């Protein structure tokens, strides 16, 4: 009688332990898969950004032939491109580092600004716009930019899924023990932008 109670008790404990172990293995694997997904998405951004930085010098060279009076704009584009490119390299050396992501995003924003200016200025050069090479480059650049933004959406979605999984009970109990940390979103964090506008009634 005693014996059987003890056996049942041990069996229950063993089963419970196995269940917990199974759950632990399951959530560990789930987190690893989710992390792989967003890391993969990040690689996609990385590839597209590199391609973008490769295309821009070609575009500038093509444009230079037509836009003799826009040297400053062109130089600004090249400078911004170089800055963004080195920010990307820094990030590649230290993947997923939130500070590096922020500096890359800042550089990207600057590059986007000067590229926008270049495109606006190029409107005034019909021969440039009609140039076959320029059309191809513009198309490639547009496509790459779309790919960056789509990949960014994908990355942010994957990161959000991961972070939610990480913080959900009961996974949250073991996540840090298993060595998982919250991942950073690929988006600009600027305190000034998020601040509500001040309203004055005077």
């Amino acid at each position, binding site marked *: 009688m005693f014996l059987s109670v003890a056996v049942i008790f041990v069996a229950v404990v063993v089963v419970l332990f196995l269940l917990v172990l199974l759950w632990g293995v399951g959530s560990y694997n789930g987190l690893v898969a989710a992390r792989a997904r967003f890391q993969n998405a990040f690689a996609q951004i990385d590839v597209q950004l590199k391609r973008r930085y490769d295309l821009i010098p070609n575009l500038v060279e093509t444009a230079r032939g037509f836009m003799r009076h826009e040297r400053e704009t062109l130089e600004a584009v090249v400078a911004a491109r170089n800055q963004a490119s080195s920010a990307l390299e820094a990030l590649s050396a230290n993947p997923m580092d939130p500070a590096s992501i922020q500096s890359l995003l800042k550089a990207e924003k600057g590059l986007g600004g000067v590229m926008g200016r270049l495109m606006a200025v190029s*409107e005034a050069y019909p021969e440039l716009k009609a140039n076959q090479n320029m059309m*191809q480059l513009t*198309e*490639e650049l547009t*496509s790459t930019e*779309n*790919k960056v933004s*789509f990949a960014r*959406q*994908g990355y942010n979605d994957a990161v959000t899924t991961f972070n939610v999984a990480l913080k959900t009970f009961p996974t949250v109990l073991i996540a840090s023990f298993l060595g998982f940390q919250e991942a950073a979103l690929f988006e600009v964090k600027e305190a000034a932008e998020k601040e509500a506008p001040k309203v004055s009634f005077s």
Partner: protein
Amino acid sequence: MDFFAAQDEARERSGRLLWLFALAVTSVVLSVHVAAELFLGWSGHAEFEFHPHWDLLPWTAGVTLVPMGIVALTKWAALSGGGGAVAEALGGRRLAPDASDFHERQLLNVVEEVSIAAGLRVPEVWILDEEPGINAFAAGADPSCAAIAVSRGCLERLSRDELQGVVGHECSHILNGDMRLNFHTMAWIAGIAALFVLGQVLVRLTPHFFGGGNRSGSRKKQEENGLVFLLLVAGLVLLIAGSVGAFFARLIQAAISRQREFLADASAVQFTRNPEGICNALKKIGGYVDGSRLHSVRSTEVAHMLFCDGAAGFFSSFFATHPPLSERIHRLEPAWQGAVSDASAQALEPEVAEETHDNALTGTDAFESQRTASAPAGSGVDWMALARNAETSGRVLLGLLEAFEEESGFDAPSGLVLYNTLERMTLLDLALSAARQLPKAQVRKLLEDCEQQVIADESYNLFEMMLLQSIRRHLGVASGTRAPAAVCYADGMSLRGAFQVVLSAMAVLGTDHEANRDASFATAWGALGLGEAPRLDVAQIPVSVIEGALFECEKGTAVLRGALLRSCVLAVEMDGVMTELEAALLRAVADALGLPAPDWKTGSPRSVEEVNSGH
């Protein structure tokens, strides 16, 4: 639109429909079984006795399910050969991933972009070179062997954003496994339809096989007759079960397919984050002569995979594999209330397709490209058609403002050169009424663009001001930024100052010779009967004041406004010459005052036709 909710809804509904489909297959099997039971119960005994023969069920199920299964499997094998095979059968050509043609390159890029957005492997890309209609399809049983095929019309007539929308739609079919779902239902339909064919064969052939001999009365003959009867009845049962089953199965398949289309539209928005792309593509298909028609004889086989119905007018709405265009547009853009784009406008779009949509509201680029080819008829740009189309009406309005930029107006460097001023006013009317169909936000944007265009050049003249006033009047009300003017003044004296300003302006605009302007004003003013007043020097008055005066006048009663308009006519025709510009001016004033255009025949001694012919 809330695309997540839309996706949930569509998924749920198509799940329910799939159950219905299983139910249809089951009921076909059961009805065959019941028919067999009834037949046995009736033929075995003199009186009818019903004993359920459940042991018969495997047989009846076998008789129905085996042919169904064989045909379904054959169909399945044929369809699941990979998307490329289907595209090839329809006359497609596979694009090499390094194609260098601009449009092909763009298509490949767009497919890559959307694949990234959807998280798919990049599918094969095919082009249907022989198809001028706007259509596309996705094929392939699973994402790894999927292909997207796009018609030539799609490449040539859609802008980049619209193409992205179409590709997004097709990628959603791949991602959501719609092709697989469709293959299942297609295969089952083929199976059910096979029952019908089997039944038909039995009914037709049985008499031939056994009807040959003339040995009557023999025992063998009686047995034969019994067999013939049995086979005939079995054939009839299969025939009816097959046809009724196939009918309902098609109905269900079409309904599933329609739900998947809504889901795909919603996903396209999710992938591209741009509802306008796919929306404009749908509108273009609606307005385009060739629409989404495909010429390939095999296109009905892929009907359910297409972006839009490939056959014209053939399906009734119950069997349509796609929801009506207007409903799809409505779900994407609830504010949409217009008809689809005007067909004649779309027909000329190959050259201007991108400008039309990208620059419809900014206008200038489209004009650059149109400056050389500008005849109203025959040269390719039909401004009337553009003006009738809500999408392009903005371009026309901006063009008109540009055309009237100089007071001399007529040599404005745009495609409108060959339209005379009155025709331009007609264009204005058409474009204004078309533009009112646009969503409010777009109207507001257009209004801002018009104001920008007028203010942008230094020569903000009276005529431009009049045009702008009339555009504001129409579009301001349409966009909800401006309420229709309420009547505030019934007494002419309270509007005296405003009348004085307006008539002074009209005297200047309507009279060429400096010396005659006072006389013109005096005559016009006299007709109002508001006492004496001097003509104001319009050059000294800021345009905004004149604008304000016109706006005040609008608040007068209809009688007052009518009197003012008659005086305006007098002021303009006082010198005996009414140019086209002056006639147009009067129309603009009438419009700004909210009145119908003045009746020239009675209002002036010379009709416009006379003026024009003498001009």
